[in-house]
């Protein structure tokens, strides 16, 4: 198929590839490079740009707001990640029993995934209302006095986590369901013949064979944990007393609230470094486990 002459080929490239190259260049590659350059500057868009070397990075490392955002992110990950993965897997296992109506259930669990974060955040803000919200009323039915949720610095993050788990479970479920389809039926049947019970079947066959899926899901969820913004912006705006501030919020505030374009860019590269490190560590871990299995 390479019979096309040089000229025809480059004409075809100009038509087929050039639009994408221009778009990717203008809206991804150029901004990424500019962002890195800007991160070494002090610039408010109005006065001339000043070059300050690694000043922004030095500042970011010692900035209490950045430290708090990182602590908040860690809290978020600890509360969110194990819950969303285990509940998502649990539902996938139930749906994988192939009972009648499974597609309807699968569709229902996925509805929050497609709904916009802004709408979801508004609903959860109301659900978590300490006095008139549905959650505290449900808790009162079983004799629990619900907390102040988004108004209480020690509970606000839990409220954000709860809403995020609710929204993301369907995503995890669908990915796990796809992973479960790949497990050969005869492996399960063989273990049934050997007299394995459901618990043994899960730990000896299903869970090890799902390892690639689990790695994929945890990586994606970890990355998104570092990028939390919409729900926090609507539900708490980072408060009370900074207890739900995230890294992306700091980027937003510094750039578009305080006009510190250079510092905001530097924080975004700190965010990149964190995500990159975590993804890399995950990959190394996965390779090592693959090797020990094989």
């Amino acid at each position, binding site marked *: *198929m390479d019979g*096309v002459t040089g000229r*025809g*080929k480059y004409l*075809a*490239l100009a*038509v*087929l*590839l050039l*639009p*994408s*190259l221009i*778009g*990717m260049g*203008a*809206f*991804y*590659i*150029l901004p990424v490079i500019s962002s890195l350059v*800007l991160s070494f500057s002090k610039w408010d*868009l109005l006065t001339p740009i000043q070059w300050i070397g690694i000043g922004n990075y030095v500042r970011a490392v010692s900035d209490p707001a950045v430290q708090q955002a990182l602590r908040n992110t860690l809290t978020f990950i600890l509360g969110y990640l194990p819950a969303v993965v285990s509940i998502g897997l649990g539902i996938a296992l*139930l749906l994988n*029993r192939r*009972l*009648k109506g499974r597609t309807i259930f*699968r*569709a*229902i669990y*996925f509805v*929050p995934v*497609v*709904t*916009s*974060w*802004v*709408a979801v955040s*508004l*609903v959860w803000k*109301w*659900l978590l209302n300490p006095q*008139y919200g549905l959650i505290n*009323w449900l808790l009162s039915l079983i004799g629990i006095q619900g907390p102040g949720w988004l108004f209480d610095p020690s509970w606000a993050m839990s409220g954000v986590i709860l809403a995020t788990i*609710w929204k993301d479970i369907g*995503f995890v479920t*669908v*990915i796990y*369901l796809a992973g479960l389809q790949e497990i050969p039926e005869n492996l399960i049947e063989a273990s049934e013949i050997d007299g394995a019970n459901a618990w043994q079947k899960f730990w000896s066959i299903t869970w090890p064979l799902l390892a*690639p899926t689990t790695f*994929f899901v945890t990586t994606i969820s970890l*990355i998104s944990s570092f990028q939390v913004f919409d729900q926090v*912006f609507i539900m708490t705006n980072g408060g009370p007393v900074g207890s739900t501030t995230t890294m*992306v919020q700091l*980027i937003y505030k510094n*750039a578009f609230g305080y006009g510190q374009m250079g510092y*905001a*860019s530097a924080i*975004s590269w700190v*965010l*990149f470094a964190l*995500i990159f490190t975590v993804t890399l560590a995950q990959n190394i871990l996965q390779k090592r486990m693959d090797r020990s299995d094989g």
Partner: protein
Amino acid sequence: MASRVLRPADYATYALLLLGATAMLLPFAWMLSTSLKSGQAIFVMPPQLVPEEPTLDNYTRIFGTMPMGQFLINSIFVSVVSTAIMVLNCAMAGYAFARIKFPGREIIFYAYLATLMIPQQVTLVPLFVLMTWLDWGNTYQALILPSSFGAFGTFLLRQFYLKLPREVEEAAFMDGAGYVRIFFTIGLQLARPAIATLAVFSFMASWNAFLWPLIITSNQSMMTLPVGLSFLNGRYGTDWSVLMAGAVIGTLPIIAVYVFAQKYIIQGLATTGLK
């Protein structure tokens, strides 16, 4: 499998699935219910899931005080146009990467893939500077163009074309057609499954996008639904029945799309997510 006798374990499965489904749907029911209540009825304890005296007042109020219709039109226009541009440029580039050999192809393709590693937030400040410099604040092109290109879609389509047998295209080649004509007459049609998946993802991402539209629009007439709702949240912070009416308006269209395109969304996610 549907006709077999239900065992106790099956009943337990159903019970758990029903409990989960209730937890998934209850917030939506609560949202709809609150949006149909009067200002006072929402504070009645115990809460009523079915409003005693349902009213559409909140909807009339919200359309009266905010350009909700405009938000809706903006969201639809931005999502549809950016999805169309995304699908077309990704399919064209994916086809080119898969079928045309040219110097530097690998390097360019790896540069595309590298952008997948970089969180979008990194590009926010330069994009904003670029748009300000072009004087594109509060314009459709600023809302549309940055979300109309992407390595993910290009990669998806490239993989699709790589797996596609070349026989059909070879025949057209023998007849003297060039790459461009073959792409538009044959390639685009053949890629329909991949295009459908990309279109659905691109539409949902664009429809639900928040941070970028929040930054680039300050004029109400240019706001998309999520930004409009966030604006509503700022203005009616405690008027829950109005806020829930807004949330319903923001949620219904995408749920309609979801019901219609459910197959593509879930299968697309399951197949592209792992490969």
